[in-house]
């Protein structure tokens, strides 16, 4: 119970700090953020957009890990866990795409410009979509679990390629990418310590939130299956 209260306070604090703390030229007090040329007030997106993208990856990783576990042990609970993780990953993937696009409209002038990061998140969106299309097309439970596990493992293998290919093929606009000239890699050195601190807090807070949502979600899937089986038997 106590960690739920901590989570509530953590994300409340992050939203207060992320939205209301002023951005000034020369930060003096602990609650002032540095002004990053090219981003200005837009830089505050980092407290809300980056965690969603981070959770997308975490969810994808977890989904793959539990898929692997399912293939090893053939335990339906692992499939429910993988499925719940993928569902949450899809939600956060959409959130990351949309928030990023809205931000890009005002930072780069267009909603979508096939920046490497945008393309990779688009690929993730396609993978999640394909996974759910596959799941919905199969009736038999075990077959569905096996095939979707296999597919998510194949899809997971392709992800590292995007990291290597994208920067070669497309020019980077995203803050933090290698040839970024306009906005500067804010992640590396332009954040001051208080901004970095709140950023890390926000990552931690959102990860706990994800973990909680994932627990609720996979439990509901497991119990639904259990109740269905009881209905058939009884």
């Amino acid at each position, binding site marked *: 119970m106590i960690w739920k209260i901590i989570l509530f306070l953590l994300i409340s604090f992050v939203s*207060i700090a992320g939205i209301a703390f002023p951005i000034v030229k020369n930060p003096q007090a602990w609650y002032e953020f540095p002004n990053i040329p090219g981003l200005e007030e837009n830089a505050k997106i980092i407290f809300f957009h980056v965690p969603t993208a981070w959770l997308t990856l975490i969810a994808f990783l977890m989904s793959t890990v539990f898929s692997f576990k399912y293939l090893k042990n053939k335990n339906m609970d692992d499939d429910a866990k993988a499925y719940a993780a993928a569902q949450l990953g899809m939600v956060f993937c959409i959130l990351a795409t949309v928030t990023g696009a809205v931000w890009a409209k005002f930072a780069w002038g267009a909603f979508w410009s096939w920046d490497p990061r945008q393309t990779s998140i688009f690929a993730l969106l396609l993978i999640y979509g394909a996974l759910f299309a596959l799941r919905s097309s199969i009736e038999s439970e075990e077959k569905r679990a096996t095939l979707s596990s296999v597919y998510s493992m194949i899809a997971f293998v392709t992800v590292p390629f995007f990291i290597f290919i994208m920067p070669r093929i497309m020019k980077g606009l995203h803050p933090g990418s290698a040839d970024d000239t306009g906005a500067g890699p804010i992640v590396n050195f332009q954040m001051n310590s208080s901004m970095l601190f709140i950023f890390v807090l926000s990552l931690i807070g959102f990860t706990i939130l994800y973990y909680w949502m994932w627990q609720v979600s996979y439990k509901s899937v497991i119990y639904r299956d259990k109740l269905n089986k009881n209905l058939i038997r009884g």
Partner: protein
Amino acid sequence: MESFLSNNSIYIVMIIVLIVWGGIFFYLLSLDKRIKNVEKEIKNGEQNEK
């Protein structure tokens, strides 16, 4: 107070975000409780069968 808020509208955004977050949080809390109740019920049902 009112004039302060209308001059610094970012604080209104902050309050709204906090309210939305509170709503989501308490919804999740109630969902969690409901799941726990179902868990208990299923466990009791299994024991009764045995």
